[in-house]
Every structure is written in C-alpha cells, then in structure tokens.
C-alpha cells in the first residue's frame, strides 16, 4: 500500500486541480464517489484472515422463468416527480444516472414521460394506419409488422425538457438523476419507416408525417418527411425484448437524435400531409421562446451534451485520494469525438478516455482519474461531436438563446466539491 501511495506522486497531472492522465486508468485501484478509496482502509481489511462466505456453503435457488436483479441493487430506482392528483397519468420518471455504468439503460430504468398514463394495449387488436397523401392507405397488424426485415441500432432518447431547471436563475440542489435523468439509451429494433411509407406510396406533394399514439391523450407530433425517410424506425423491440409498455408497447416511432416526445409511443397512425398538423405538443409545448419573443418550433435534434455522473450532485467524497470521474456524452447530430474534463471550473481541461462505442446518436461513456486533495473543486465535462459541435457553457448557451425557453438545455453541468467533500449543482 505504501508503494501505491508513493506511485500517486508520480502520476502525470494533465490539467489543474488534480486531473490525471487517462492512461493511468488501467493501472490504478480507483474509487468511485461515495466509496472508500483509502489505501489505509484496504490495508486494514487485508490484514483480516479471509474466510469462505456463507453463500459458498449452501446452494442457492435454481433457474427461473424471468430474471430479477440482486436485492442489493434495489436502491437503483427511477424517481417520479410529484404526481398531479387531478391528472395522475401525466408526468415523468427519471433514470438513476449516477448509479449506471456503460451506455445501455436497463429497460426497467429507462426514463418515462407520459401525457395520459400507460395504456394496456392488446397487440392482437392494435392497428398501425398509414393514410393521407399516399397512393394507397394501408393498415398493418402487429403480426404483419413482425414479419418485416428489421434493423437494430443503439440510440439515446432524451426528453427535450431534460436539464430544464438549469435555465433557471438559481442553481437548485439536485442530483444527476433529478436534473438530467430524462435521458436513456437502448438498442432499438424495428422497421425503417421508409419501408412502410414506400409500400403505401408517398404522393409528391407530401412534406410532413403526422404520428399519433394510441394512449388516452392520442399524442400527436409532426415529423418532416425528409427526416421520416431517413433513419426513423417503427420500433418493436428494446434491448431485445418487445418494447416495454411505458415505452410504447407494442410499437413506437423512433426518431434518432431528436427530442423524445417526437418518438410517439403506442404508434397507431401515420398521416402524410403538405404542412405540419400543428399539434398542441409542437405549439403550446416543446417550443422555445427567444428573447425577441418569437418561438422556435420543431427544434428536433438534441444538442451536443455531456455530464459527469460520478462524482455528481448530492454525493459525498469520503476521503482524499484518487477518484474515477465518469459520465455520459451524446449528440443528436452525430457521434461523440471527444470529451474534456475540468476540475477547476473550466480554467484548464484534459481529455477523458472514451471507453465505450462512439456510435451515431448514442450515449458514449467517458472516464478520467482525478486526485482530490481536500480542496474545493468544480468538476465539468465538455463534449465535441463528429460534426465539430462543442457543448457550450451554460452562460454561452443563455447568451445565445436567452432564458425564456424551457426545453433543449445542453450547457455544461458544473458540480462543486466542497472542502468537506460534498458535491452539489452550481453555476460556474
């Protein structure tokens, strides 16, 4: 242990306030926030004689039809906001980003946003209709659609209201989950929408596609036809299993990279038209008022974004030492090329290692070691995508967009670490 402590002094510091070259990640016994890093503690443990644990002395339960997680991980929960008593079906729940690793969100922890609750759909009675400006209106059953060739892609999904509290004037107390938990990532399997549109025969005047869900709100959104013919899917599977009810079972539209609401769940109708339908959720909601009081509409791709998920808000660093700083990054316009991390509020930056795949419109996972010596710090991450878009600071984003909008926040998140090790949301 003494050796290890000594080797810390030889670590190559790559930016101010303790950031260490990412190449050291593989060689170091690092810790995540909230967990003990201290070599002294490890040393104490190591001095105890190890015994065979009790679970190695008795057989456990056998195989089961449907798996469940360890009872020791049940603290990982989505958190739902205060449900509105007059309207319990409306609302959202957020993914526990600070507990997750890798890039794929387990289906049970994928964030939710519903406008009239989760419908209980019998797939044998569900229909998907394509009508409007097509040569031949068509209706498909679920069983029909299962017979089509499909594609599988890993994509993030982010509610455009995610991180919206950061538009506010004061930095509210919060965690990675409570501030940013309306983003998740899954492998989506489905039929390219273009396949089904080609089968119906798109009329040349058509410019827009209206998608409608079968929930009690009949959620409707208009998608520009050029996007609909590009990479949009009618998704039937999520991480290999049928799309979960909360995510649109038996089928949802999936518009990669774009604000979550447009990936209409419980998809039941696709209608082609010259103009957008101007649904309530593309006029009254999901639009951003600019300082000149005009409001941006159909702002579909989500911005280049990242955040540190550990250490993050409401965690505590228990002792000085080397921590692994990790987080997620994504862009609605491409793949993630680079993530930089700062420990001094953006004065100096170091490249984090991207340890995951770097695919288009998917989450990427980054990591970098950081030595906390007990001083105060402000941890930030900054993503750059494959098209050269760089995540802006919060103040640069507000200087550009104003702060009358409520959606599409993608500025840099700052987590302050106090001298006592408490981590909290700050504006820096």
């Amino acid at each position, binding site marked *: 242990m003494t050796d290890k402590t000594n080797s810390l002094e030889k670590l190559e510091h790559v930016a101010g306030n303790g950031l260490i070259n990412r190449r050291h990640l593989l060689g170091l016994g690092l810790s995540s926030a909230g967990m003990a890093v201290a070599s002294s503690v490890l040393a104490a443990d190591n001095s105890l004689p190890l015994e065979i644990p009790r679970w190695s002395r008795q057989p456990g339960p056998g195989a089961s039809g449907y798996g469940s997680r360890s009872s020791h991980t049940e603290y990982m929960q989505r958190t739902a906001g205060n449900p*509105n008593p*007059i*309207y319990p*079906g*409306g609302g959202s729940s957020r993914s526990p980003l600070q507990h997750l690793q890798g890039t794929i969100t387990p289906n049970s922890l994928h964030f939710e946003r519903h406008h*009239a609750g989760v419908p209980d759909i019998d*797939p*044998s009675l569900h229909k998907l*209709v*394509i*009508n409007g400006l097509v040569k*031949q*209106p*068509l*209706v*498909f059953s679920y*069983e*029909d*659609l*299962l*017979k*089509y*060739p499909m594609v599988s892609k890993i994509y993030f999904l982010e509610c455009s209201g995610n991180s919206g509290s950061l538009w506010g004037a004061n930095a509210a107390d919060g965690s990675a989950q409570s501030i940013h938990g309306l983003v998740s990532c899954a492998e989506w399997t489905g039929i390219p929408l273009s396949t*089904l549109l080609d*089968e*119906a025969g798109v009329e040349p005047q058509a410019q827009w596609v*209206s998608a*409608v869900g079968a929930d*009690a*709100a*009949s959620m*409707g959104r208009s998608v*520009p036809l*050029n*996007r609909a013919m590009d990479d949009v899917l009618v998704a039937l599977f999520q991480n290999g299993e049928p799309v979960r009810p909360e995510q649109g079972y038996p089928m949802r539209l999936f518009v990669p990279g774009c604000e979550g609401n447009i990936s209409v769940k419980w998809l039941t*109708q696709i*209608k082609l*038209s*010259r*103009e*957008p*339908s*101007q*649904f*309530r959720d593309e*006029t*009254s909601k999901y*639009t951003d*008022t*600019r300082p000149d*009081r*005009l*409001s*941006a*509409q*159909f*702002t*579909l791709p989500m911005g280049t974004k990242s955040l540190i998920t550990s250490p993050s808000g409401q965690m505590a660093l228990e002792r000085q030492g080397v921590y692994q700083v990790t987080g997620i990054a994504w862009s609605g*316009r491409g793949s993630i090329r680079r993530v930089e991390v700062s420990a001094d509020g953006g004065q100096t930056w170091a490249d984090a290692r991207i340890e995951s795949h770097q695919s288009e419109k998917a989450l990427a996972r980054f990591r970098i070691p950081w030595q906390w010596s007990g001083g105060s710090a402000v941890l930030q991450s900054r993503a750059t995508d494959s098209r050269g878009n760089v995540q802006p600071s919060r103040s640069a984003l507000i200087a550009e967009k104003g702060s*009358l909008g409520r959606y599409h926040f993608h500025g840099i998140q700052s987590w302050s670490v106090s001298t006592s090790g408490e981590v909290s949301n700050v504006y820096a």
Partner: protein
Amino acid sequence: MHRKLIRLLALIGIAQIVFIASSQETVRLGTPISESQLEGFDLIVAADGSGLPAGSGTALQGKAVFESRCQACHSANGEGTSGNTRLVGGDMHSAGNPIRTVGSYWPYASTVFDYVRRAMPADAPKSLSDIEVYQVTAYVLYLNGIIDQYLILNSETLTQVKMPNRDGFIDESQAQ
C-alpha cells in the same frame, strides 16, 4: 388469454419461416383501407382545417360544457390550478417571462379543437361529442377575447379565427 399468447408466439415462429422463404422479395403486408373507413379513427384536425367534422357551436353554448366538464381542473374562467392548466391570459410582449396560454401563445385555433377532442377532459378523453367540442372550443377562445360569444364555430369559421400569436413561431425543422 394464455391460448391467445401461444397463438401469437406460434405466429412469430411462422413469421420467421415466411420471411426466410421470401427474403429475395420485398415484404408487403399492409392491407388496403379507404379514407372513408378511417373516418371514425383519424382524429387529426390540422392547421388548414382538414379533418374538422360536421357540426358547429358557440361560446354561449360552450359555457355549460365548460362548467360541467372542464372547470374542476381549469377553474372558473379558465384561470387554471397550475401553470399547465391555465387556459387564458398572458402577453408574449410582457416584461419578464411571458405567460404562455391558448390566448397568448397558440398559433392556430384548430389546435384547440384537435387537442380538446383527443385529450380532454383529462379524466375522460374523447367523451365529448363533436358539437360539444365546437362549443367548448368557442368558449375557450371567447374567454381569451379572441371571438365573441355568438360566433358560430364550424369547419369554415374555425380556420378563419386569427390567433394573436399566429406569426410568433419559427420553423426550425430544416435547420442544421
């Protein structure tokens, strides 16, 4: 229920066999349907008025619908019980953060009809008749001072209603 599930699973199995057998051809399994068969299914009322059903109503008639079916959540005069349920007032050019409602923000009157018919009342969506939707749409527009209480709202007149913030939006759908 169980039997249905097994039948469905069997179908999925068959589906894969069918697909392998015809992998050289395009799969085309949509069943043709006519627009008239979709009349009761397609609820979309677009900004150009397409999809508006027959019928009409005035705000005078809509007051009673509002009081019995909407007021519990939107309160008297549509002032709302929270930001989300406020249906009246606001001014996009007021100082500070403007209050955005049907009256101050929505660019099209068609959206009121479309949304109320599909999603309201929130505790019993799609329970109003088309006539009641015309009536209560007229009432919400009247509460905002956009039309008078006698205007007969129908598929012709509704699209002619000019909303105060009609020119307040910028379409960014083709922005890079």
